[in-house]
C-alpha cells in the first residue's frame, strides 16, 4: 500500500487516488482543423516512462487534482504539488 500526499489533505492510502493522465498534455483546439494523427496522439500516446514520472492524479475524497512526481520503478514519491502552484 503506497502513501501519496494530497497537497490539500496530507498523506493518504493509494486507494483514495485516481490516475488522471500524464502531466503536460494539453487538449488540442478542436474548433480548428486537427489531423486524425494529431488527435490520436493526444488521445492515446503516452510517454509511459520508466523512472521519474510526472502525473496528474485526483484525490477522490476531496476531488482535487494535483501533480504527483514519483519513480515508476522504485515507487518512491518525489513530491506532490497543487496544480495552481505547479502552473499546470
Amino acid at each position, binding site marked *: *500500500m*503506497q*502513501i501519496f500526499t494530497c497537497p490539500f489533505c496530507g498523506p493518504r492510502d493509494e486507494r483514495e487516488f*485516481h490516475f*488522471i493522465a500524464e502531466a503536460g498534455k*494539453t*487538449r*488540442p*483546439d*478542436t*474548433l480548428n482543423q*486537427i489531423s*486524425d494523427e494529431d*488527435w490520436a496522439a493526444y*488521445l492515446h500516446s503516452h510517454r509511459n516512462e520508466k523512472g521519474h514520472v510526472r502525473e*496528474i492524479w*485526483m484525490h*477522490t475524497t476531496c*476531488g*482535487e*487534482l494535483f501533480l504527483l512526481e514519483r519513480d515508476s520503478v*522504485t*515507487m518512491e*514519491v518525489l513530491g506532490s504539488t497543487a*496544480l495552481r502552484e505547479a502552473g499546470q
Partner: protein
Amino acid sequence: MTTRRLNSGGLIDRSKPISFWFDGKTYEGFEGDTLASALLANGVSIVGRSFKYHRPRGVWSAWVDEPNAIMNIRLNGKEQPNCLATTTYIEEGMAARSVNAFPTAKYDIKGGLDLFHRFLGAGFYYKTFIWPDWHLFEPAIRKMAGLGAVDREVLEDFQSAQNHAKCDVLVVGGGAAGLTAARAAAEAGKDVVLVDDQRVLGGSLYRCGATADIDPDEWVAAQKTAIENAGGRILTHTTAYGVYDHGLVALVQSQGFGRAPALWRMRAGQVIMATGALDRPITFAKNDLPGTMSLNAAGEYLARYGVMAANKPLVMRNNSHASATIENLRAAGSKVEEIDHVDGITNQGRKHTTGLRIGKDQIDADGVLVSGGLTPLVHLWRHAGGKLDWCETRQAFVPKPATDAMIAIGAANGTYDLAQAIEEAEAAGKGTPIDRPSTTYTTTLIDTKPHSKGRQWIDFQHDVTLKDIEVAARENYVSVEHLKRYTTLGMAFDQGKTSNMAGLTAMAALRGKPIPQVGTTTFRPPFVPVPLEIYHGAKTKQLWSPVKRLPLEDKHRDLDAAFCEYGGWLRPGWYGSGDRDATIQKEAKAARDTAGIFDGSTLGKIEVMGPDAEAFLNFVYYNTIKSLKPGGIRYGFMLTEGGIVYDDGVVTRVDQNRFIVSCSSSHVDGVRTHLEAWRQDGNDPDRIFVHDQTTAWATVTVTGPKARDVLSSLDTTIDLAPDAFPHMTFREGTMGAIPLRIARVSFSGDLSYEVSVPTGHAETLWNAITAAGKEQGVSPIGLEAMSILRAEKGFIIIGKDTDGETMPHDLGFTIPRAKKKAAFIGDRSLHTEKANADDRKVLVGLSVPDGEPPLATGAHAFTETPTRRSLGYVTSSYQSPNVGPIALAIIEAPHAKVGDTIKIWHKEEVREVTICDPCRFDSEGGRLHA
C-alpha cells in the same frame, strides 16, 4: 521405539502432558512441544513422503525451513491442510496425518514409484506424453498431485482481525541481536515493535547462548522487561512475511491452532532485520534418509524441547559455528562422532540411517547431523529492494550496507559471533550503526562433485538430486531461474530455504564458476506460506463491495418489496410476494392506466455552479447547454474524449449560474470524477464548482395519466397546471416547511414528475404521495416495471442498450455532431474513419411476429452471407402488458432499416423479426405533454 526425551532441559512444561495422534497412533508430548519435537521425542522417524518419488522423509529442521514434515491436522472437527510439524505447537486431541502418503508415512503404497526414478528426472514431463496426446495422461498425473487435502465444506469462521499500526522502529526477530536492538532503540526513546515468529523469544540463544556464558532464560527475560518498560511492544508467534512499498511490513500473528491468524499492516520508519541464519544441508549420497538432520536443528531440539535427536550421531560440518552445538549435544550425553566429508560418502539404511559408508568402511550410527554452513535469512531484505554482496569468507550472500529505512544485524547480516552481534545490535538500536565486524567464523566450501556416485538430494521435498542439476546444466538450463523452473528446485513449501544454496553450489561446480557468477535466487513474498483467510477481514459477505441503500428502504419493506441489486443499489424490483412476472406486468399496466409511484432517489444529482458553469457544461455535454433557459431541463449525453457515450441524463438549469446534472444511478461517482477532472483542467476552478448532492435529496417519481391528480392533493406551493409547468421544466417550492423540487421529466413516456425533498424528509414525502395515490388507486411500482415502460418508449439505459462503441449519432442524436459551434468533450472523435463508417451499429426496435414470445436479451442478429457473423444484439427485451413483446437492439446500420426482416440467434435457435422504431408507445408524445 525408545523415548529420546531427556529428563530435564528445554522450554517445555513437563507437568502438562498432551496426547495427540499421528497417522492413526496416539503419542504423548508436553505443553510447548511442536509436533516435530514430540514425534522425535517418541522416536518417530518417518514423518512424511517426498512429493515425486514418495521417498520416506524424516524431520530435517526445527522451524520454518522444514521441507519434509508436512501434515494435515484435524482439531475440534476442523482440518487444516499442509501444516509444518516443526512450527505447529501440539494441543490436546490434535490428529495429524502425513500428506502424500497412504495409508501412513511409514508404509506408503506409492513408495514403489522410487524404483522408476531413473526415468522421471529433471525435465521428464517436457519430453514425454507428447504422443498421442497429453490429455490422455494428465488425469492420472493430476491424481498424484498435491500434498494435503482441502476441506471442501464452506467454512464460516475465517474472518481475520485486521490491524493497522505504525512505529518508529520495527525489529524483526527476537533473538539476541533483535532483543538488543529493540531494547536499545526503545531506551533511546523510539516507538519500537519487536516481532518474533516463535512463541518463546530468544532465537538461537538457547542453542548457542549457554556456551557464551549467558543464561538464556535470564537474559531474554531482562531484555524483554527492559523493552516493555521503555514502551516497546512485543509480538510473539508473529511472522513478518513481506515488505511492500513505502515501508509497509505485513505481519501474520497466530491466534492459536485452527483460528484465523491476525493480519498486521505495520508501517515502520525503520526496519531492523535480525532474522538470523539457517544451516545448509550437505550434498552426499542418500542424504535424504530419515535420521539425517540439520545439526542446528538437533541443537534446537535439545535446547528448546529437551529432545535428543540422536544418541550416537555422526556429524559432518564445514564451519566453526557448529562447534557450540556439538559441545552442547555432547554435554547432554550424545556420543557425537565427527566425520570429514569426503567424496563417495554414502548414507546407509532403508527407512532410517544406520550410519555412513566411506569407501569400504561402515560407521554405525543412529543419526547423521550435518552443518553445511550458515545462510543469512535475507528474504525480507530482498523484498524491500535491499542488495546483496557475496562474502567469500562466509561463503554466503550478505546484505549490502544499510539504508536509513532498513538495517540488518546479527546472523542475518553475517555477524554470527554472539558478542559481536550484540554489539552490532546495540549500535543499530541506538541509531549509530557500525560496519559489519570482521568475523571469526570460518568455513570451507564443500565442493559438490559432479558426476559422483549415488543419488544426492538437493531439494528434499521435490526430489531434486544432483543428477537433475547435471541434466539441467547439460541441456543449458543454466540460468538460476531456468534451473529452478526446469528441475523445480527451491519451489517447494520452504521456497528453497533448505535447497537454494545447495543448488547454486552444485551449478557453480558444474559450470566451473564461482557462486556469485551463477546468480542469486529471487526472494518472493511471503517469507512463509500464509493462509488466504488473513486477507478476509471485516469486508466479507455483504460487506464485500457493499450495496448502496435507499433512505426509503424501510417503507419499501413495509410494502413487501422484492429487493434486487441494480448498479450497486439495493432497490425494489417489484412489490408483493406474488408471482414475479405477473406482478411486474400488473405494475407496468397500472402505471399506464392510472399511474405509478417510483423511488427515484438513486438518480445522480450533481450541482454545477458558478459564473463559468454554463460554458463548462456546454463543453462537457454533447448537446448544447448554452441555450437552456433557467427553469428549463434538457436531455443530453456526456461523451468520453473517444466520442463514446459515457452517460445520459437530464441537465436542469436552476438559474443563470446553477445547474443540476442528473446522471445514471450507477454512474454518479464516475460522472463526478469526470466533471472534477475537466473542471480543473483548462478552466478557472474558482469560477466553477461541482457538488454532488445525490444522497442529499430523496426523489419520488409519480408517472402516468393520473400523476398530476396525485400530486395536486399534496400541499405544495407549486402550480402543476400544464401551461404553468410544462414538460422539461423545473420548479422549486415547499411542501409545508419542507423545501421541494419538482422536475417534470419522464423516463416512462407518460406525464411524470420527479419530486425531491431533502433526504431527512423522505418519509414525509413518501407517506404523502402514497396516501394521495391510494385515493386515486395508484400504487408503487418497482424498477422492473419502469424498465418495461421506458423500453416501450425506446428510452435507453446506458451500458445496457449501448456498448463501448456507441456514439450519439448511433442513437439518432446527430445534430450537435454536425452543427454544434462550441468545442465539447469527444467532438473530434466523432469524425474518425470508424465514426463515419456506414456499418455502425445503431439503435433500433425489433418486432416479433404476432403470437410469438419476446426475444431473449442477449440474442444476436446475424447473417449467413457471405459467412455467418453477428450483426448486433438485443440489448433489452420484455413482454409489455401495454404493447406486447418489445425489444431494443443495436444492429449494423445497413441491416437495420425499419421494415427489414432480420434473423435472430439465441442458443442455436433462430427466429425472424422485423426492424421497427425503438419507440412503440405514444410516438406522437401526446402523453408526455399531457
